[in-house]
């Protein structure tokens, strides 16, 4: 090649680069326009909040969190994960996927609010908003609704979720303290020590400790072997709003949070191979958590319709008499309303309080809705969740409709589920973990296993008693 030809070739290359630069510059300008097709709330929280936040600071953060929750993420934000699966552990897809959205294995939603919207943003979802829970490891490319590949799940509402997580943390602390006491007594006495595991009045079986420091896990009931209550999802397998948020962002949107999918744990700044790096910062996650954690708790609201108040009162009595309250506990006491994020029980892959210099503290007591929460004589908040944060077997030999899955999920057998918290149930039909019961009557009658006795009591009741119970349940509503 002579010099002239070489110069010509390089001139062309220079021109190409110049055109490229101009084009990219134009794109960069466009991305900053108000109409740009990207989510402006991403990155709006520049640093992770830490320490106690004032009411005003909390409001700024939660507003950003709400914006993110409502945002329709786009490919410019990082939507899609052509090279990664929906799995909680970062997992490469065997074959890149061309489509951004995919109904079963995901991504399956444009925004969080696309599913969590009943009766308001942050709420539950109708059957159409069901998701498909699969570990996403071996069958990442499944394209079938066959339950051998996935378990279909209704979308839970998030109102009062901050209180739920606080309850779970306090209960986990209690249970682990009992374990520590059993170990201490076993070591000092030289004999096996067996203690009941009870937290906030809920029985989780027994723990046995041997003098050598070993703990027998055979008699645990409704809780994971590490004695951490994982209050979220229908199965009760997610520890925190933070963990669930990171999972969901990846699963449903292909938006990957740095704190799990970033270079520290994957070696890549674009693990999902969509051309976007640093899609969700830890501060973004914090904003989303803050908004969810401060959503108001559902309330009891009795419609003005004639006779409803009387029926609801009778139904509430029956709810107890039938034995429903043995699992759907009307309230659990909560010691503190200080919500720390990151929290204490998450493990690597979700930030916890040992992974940051100082967690942020959101004082839920600052919020207006929290002022009306009932308190007991010890000034503890009585969280009216109608649940026990415990998993139960929901089938038996006769009643097995709630055991209709083929897959266990994260070590939890297919017929075992977390007690559904009934606060807000009047605003969140349809019912059941698959959202496939159209009436409360149907879902009550579907209770087998640990719920069988209460279910039978309900089934044997008079029609007026049943009606009253429904009247009561329908007063448990979400008021955004």
């Amino acid at each position, binding site marked *: 090649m002579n010099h002239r030809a070489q110069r010509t070739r390089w001139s062309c290359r*220079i021109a190409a680069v110049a055109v490229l630069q101009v084009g990219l510059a134009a794109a960069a300008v466009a991305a900053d326009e108000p109409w740009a097709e990207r989510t402006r709330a991403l990155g709006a929280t520049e640093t992770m909040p830490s320490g106690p936040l004032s009411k005003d600071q909390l409001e700024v953060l939660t507003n950003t969190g709400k914006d993110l929750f409502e945002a329709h993420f786009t490919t410019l934000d990082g939507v899609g994960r052509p090279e990664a699966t929906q799995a909680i*552990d970062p997992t490469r897809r065997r074959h890149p996927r061309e489509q951004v959205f995919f109904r079963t294995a995901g991504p399956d939603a444009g925004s969080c609010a696309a599913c969590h919207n009943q009766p308001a943003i942050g709420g539950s979802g109708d059957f159409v908003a069901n998701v498909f829970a699969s570990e996403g490891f071996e069958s990442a490319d499944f394209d079938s609704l066959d339950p051998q590949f996935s378990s279909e799940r209704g979308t839970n509402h998030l109102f009062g979720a901050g209180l739920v997580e606080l309850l779970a943390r306090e209960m986990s602390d209690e249970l682990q303290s009992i374990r520590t006491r059993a*170990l201490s007594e076993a070591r000092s006495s030289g004999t096996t020590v067996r203690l009941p595991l009870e937290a906030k009045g809920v029985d989780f079986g027994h723990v046995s400790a041997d003098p050598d420091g*070993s703990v027998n896990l055979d008699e645990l009931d409704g809780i994971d072997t*590490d004695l951490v209550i994982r209050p979220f999802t229908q199965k009760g397998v997610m520890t925190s709003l933070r963990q669930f948020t990171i999972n969901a962002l990846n699963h449903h949107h292909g938006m990957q949070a740095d704190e799990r999918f970033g270079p520290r744990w994957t*070696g890549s700044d674009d693990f999902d191979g969509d051309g976007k790096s640093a899609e969700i910062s830890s501060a973004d996650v914090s904003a989303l958590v803050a908004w969810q954690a401060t959503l108001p708790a559902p309330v009891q609201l009795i419609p003005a319709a004639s006779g409803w108040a009387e029926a609801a009162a009778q139904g509430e009595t029956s709810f107890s008499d039938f034995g429903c309250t043995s699992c759907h506990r009307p309230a659990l006491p909560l010691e503190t309303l200080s919500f720390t994020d990151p929290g204490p029980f998450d*493990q690597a*892959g979700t930030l916890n309080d040992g992974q940051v210099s100082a967690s942020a503290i959101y004082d839920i007591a600052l919020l207006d809705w929290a002022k009306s929460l009932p308190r007991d004589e010890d000034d503890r908040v009585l969280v009216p969740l109608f649940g026990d944060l415990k998993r139960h077997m929901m089938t038996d030999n006769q009643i097995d409709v709630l055991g209709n899955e083929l897959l266990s999920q994260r070590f939890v057998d297919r017929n075992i589920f977390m007690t559904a918290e009934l606060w807000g149930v009047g605003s969140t039909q349809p019912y059941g973990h698959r959202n496939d019961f159209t009436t409360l009557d149907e879902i009550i009658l579907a209770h087998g296993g640990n719920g069988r006795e209460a279910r039978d009591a309900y089934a044997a009741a008079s029609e007026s008693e049943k009606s009253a119970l429904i009247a009561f349940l329908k007063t448990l509503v979400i008021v955004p």
Partner: protein
Amino acid sequence: MTTISPLLAISAVWLAALGQSASAQTAFTADVPTLHEEAASAGIDQSYTGGWEFFVGGGAASFDCNGDRLPDLLIAGGSAPAKFFVNESMTGGALAFKPMQTGLKAEDLTGVLGAYPLDIDNDRHTDLVLLRLGRNLVLKGGPDCSFEKANRSFSIDGGRAWSTGMSAIWEKGNRFPTIAIGNYVDRSAPGTPFGTCEPNQLLRPHPGDVPDYSDALRLEPGHCALSLLFTDWNRSGEPDLRITNDRQYYRGGQEQLWEMNQGRPPRLYTASQGWQRLTVWGMGIAETDFDADGLPEYALTSMGDTKLQKLDEEAGEDRPTYRDIAFEKGATAHRPYAGGDSKPSTGWHSEFADFNNDTKTDLFIAKGNVQAMPDFASFDPDNLLLGGFDDTFHEKGMEAGIALNTRGRGAIVEDFNMDGMLDLLVVNREHPASLFRNLGVATDWGQRALGNWIKIELDNGKINPSAVGSLISVRTGTRTQTRRIQIGGGHASGQTGFVHLGLGVSERATIRVQWPDGEWSHPYRVFANQHVRIIRGEANARYWYPVAQ
């Protein structure tokens, strides 16, 4: 050309911006642990000293001798007595050891080059084999860190050789372990030391209710062994004996693989069977299985290059033909990475482990000049080769804090304070041993914990209670990691107790165990960051917790 370069650079920047996914793989981005040296404050004061017989050796043994499951230590002293240390570390706290008097005579603990722990008589008290210059000693463990000499009661002669390595395995159907002893130079042979390597020994137990090793087999020829390892190299369920040998002194020697035939004398694998002649200054063997395919890889330390051997897929099934993947994996570690000395390194103890709990296998190599060999590096820091997500190793010894001016020999990689992060003991020649506590990752606000972890202890029952020879398979997501419970390898150093694995971001794991007799267990479902006990025959795993502080 000078006008082109800037344009090329601009083009590269813009094209890189366009093609992020293609260039998304970054350099080493996982955690680099801070390994804080605190031997003195921890109460560890032991140097490995002596004349040229103690240029090699310098090992340690880690085991629990008082039933609290914290790893206690014996550290060889060479010409000085070996010392015992009881672990009194607080969970997650500073390391703390207390010297322990066992009542053994100083003369018995003198001349020790290394030590391996194992429960020879199945009484659930760890015994110790002390490799010595002269008669090897077997110490029978008892309660509360008591030890008594057991050569007579176990009918183990102990010999008169210069012993430098050991490995043990329970051969199928045997009540007691088979023990292989590696010997170095025969100092009494004419022409010593060159070409006068002592044969090695194989101690097989006689049938009976008590250990009886009265008939030792000679493994000839010996090629001046420095590390031995029983290993199931071909996933046959029948481990063979691998020996790494020091070419400094042998003539016509090579690396060795002995085929262990049940009830018959072992036979050396030959070239016709696929074994390829390899001559190195073999100092230590480490085993791992990068891809959990049941066919292990081996790191062989030497002077100069470290070898990293992988079974050659093209050699044919059941042929022990290996190819060296050290270069492609970035694990040659052939010269110092710090200090400016560009002469070749001298590698000793090697051990695979996960120091940063990211699920990627790391490799530690103790380094140090033999004594004052002028052609080899004088400042020769130990290696911490962290496995990257690019499946190569990255040297991080300097960042971690282990690049000291010592002559490393044996080592123990163990979680001494039970916080799930691996600590490190390095025995140094003519220098106090180094004890590094893993503090996690340094940040601008303090130390941050590493990834998730799991530690597993097996209970195989009455025979071989600590399940030597078992394979532990741990599954998280699509990843399977394995660990083999072995006695042997490294450089004159061995350990028993919990087996550690990093789990990265996984919060749960499913464990299966292939017990020593080949039987696979059912899956055990466990949560991360737990000490797990798996007792053969029990439906559920147990957890274990250190004393609360």
